């Protein structure tokens, strides 16, 4: 049985003056025990898709099942097998961490004793034992996010939705969160994860669906997507504007695709294969051509590169409002 199926999901947000098609026919399938990353820029429809699958929002058209239950007609059954953790840490900041977990456990219909036990386990697992009896108001952003994730796990859900679990976290907290998510996956949880970061989808997901303007525009493993995008990127910042034509010539010869130029920062970017060897080659050729450079670097393709290749526009070019909590109220 598939853990998640969605067919032709449509969601339109209407206001007095405008109409936004947040989802415009989304199909999605998630196999049991796998991790699927829903990758897209702000406003692409990621959050809307998760809210529909987690029964918070009704689709205008299409249907979806979670663990075999219809998300509209069998919403309560769906709720008893899922856990949801969003980009807004939805925990009560005037309760302690332990009280939050106990309350969510009780509302997940666990008996009181079991709720207490589970709360203790999760505080331990998420490294919050010391802070467990402190009011959440005193927690750092990373701690709140961990508590939010722990809250989603209180009822041992078979299926977990994580909506941008690391957005807004500092790099160290982000790595910590990744470790936590990886260990959950090892325990066999099916996970649907939304993210704006290709790197994150790459680290965590077995397969990726790229979403833009409410439509899935590509799917595959991270490697498949990256080979579609064409490997790594080499970025060169030229010291003198007058040297740009000669630098472009070098990159056209050494690179493995079309270069792009950011006029403002004098930064040239070109897809490249061959890693550091290629980097050295380009440095040497630029030197031979008499081009003085301020900076040169090798980087992995980003979401922006994926979007440039797949859609012809950057990921951030037309960012729209993301549907936050209560946006549909």
């Amino acid at each position, binding site marked *: 049985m598939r853990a998640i199926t969605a067919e032709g999901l449509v969601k339109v947000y209407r206001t007095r003056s405008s109409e936004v098609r947040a989802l415009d026919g989304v199909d999605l399938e998630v196999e049991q025990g796998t991790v699927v990353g829903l990758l897209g820029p702000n406003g692409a429809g990621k959050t809307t898709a998760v809210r529909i699958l*987690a*029964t*918070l*929002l*009704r689709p205008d058209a299409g249907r979806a099942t979670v663990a075999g239950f219809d998300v509209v007609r069998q919403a*309560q059954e769906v*709720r*008893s097998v*899922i856990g*949801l953790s*969003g980009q*807004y*840490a*939805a*925990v*009560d*900041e*005037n*309760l302690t961490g332990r*009280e939050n977990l106990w*309350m*969510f456990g*009780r*509302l*997940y*219909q666990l008996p009181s004793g079991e709720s207490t036990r589970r709360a203790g386990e999760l505080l331990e697992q998420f490294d919050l034992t010391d802070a467990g009896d402190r*009011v959440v108001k005193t927690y750092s952003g990373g701690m709140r996010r961990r508590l939010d994730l722990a*809250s989603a796990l209180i*009822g041992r859900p078979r299926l977990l939705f994580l909506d941008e679990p690391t957005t807004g976290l500092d790099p160290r907290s982000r790595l910590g969160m990744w470790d936590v998510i990886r260990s959950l996956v090892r325990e066999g949880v099916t996970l649907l994860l939304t993210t704006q970061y290709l790197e994150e989808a790459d680290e965590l997901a077995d397969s990726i669906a790229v979403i833009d303007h409410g439509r899935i525009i590509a799917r595959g493993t991270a490697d498949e997507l990256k080979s579609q995008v064409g490997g790594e990127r080499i970025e060169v910042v030229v010291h003198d504007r007058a040297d740009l034509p000669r630098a472009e010539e070098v990159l056209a010869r050494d690179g493995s695709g079309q270069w792009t130029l950011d006029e403002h920062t004098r930064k040239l970017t070109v897809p490249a294969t061959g890693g550091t060897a290629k980097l050295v080659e380009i440095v040497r050729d630029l030197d031979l051509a008499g081009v003085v450079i301020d900076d040169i670097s090798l980087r992995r393709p980003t979401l922006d590169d994926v979007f440039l290749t797949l859609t012809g526009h950057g990921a951030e070019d037309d960012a729209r409002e993301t549907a936050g*909590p*209560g946006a*549909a*109220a």
Partner: protein
Amino acid sequence: MNRILADTLIVTWRNLKRIPRIPELAIFAILQSIMFVVLFAFVFGGAIPLPGGGSYREYLMPGIFAQTIVFAAATTAIGMADDIHKGLLDRFRSLPMARTAVLSGRMASDVVYNAGILVVLMVSGFVVGWKLNTGIPELLAGIALLLLFAFAMSSIGVLLGLGVPSVEVAQQVGFTVLFPITFISNVFVPPSTLPDWLQPIAEWNPTSTLTAATRELWGNPNPFVGTGLPAEEPVLVTIVWAIVIIAITLPLGVRRYRNMSR
């Protein structure tokens, strides 16, 4: 049914647990009421003669209790809007809990909260000169009536809190609507001093009937003009008001809550 009750109790527990952790809310609610007592008992009171005589402070206190209870609508609306804003409502809605427990728990905890505030105000009332001229049964009946009305106002608050875009709007709507409602009444001045066209409004205003009902129950000065139903049967009219308010706003609030998934 069992689940509704259990989940309501858990949500109630959670809301009550918050009160001592944000003591400012309760303290300012009480201070606001005490400020009205001080302003009217000591500043304006001397200039307000009661038809038929009697102590103004004894007259004033039941009105202050009623006014405080009317503001329960704002308390509930702000609490509801805050839960939406913080994403907690989404969390609740993603759990396999009794759906309406979020609302019933909110209303139950707000009634308990208002009962607590009422106790503090009654003690303050005794200090400035309020008296109970009847017995304990009448005292309890008056308190029960106030709490029934608090429940009705909470029901309005649920509807309001689910409909406003932010906590600040909930506050604004609460105060711009509730202040005039509590002033165009018999809370601070005898309605006979109002212009003719305003008198029927003040008399039928549920704040007035609630105030008159408790004054009557507790034997406090109750100079009510006219011989209309609100003057003759304030307790009955207040109960009917509460039932009508609940019957209209509660189903609408529940519907608005269910429609959040639209």
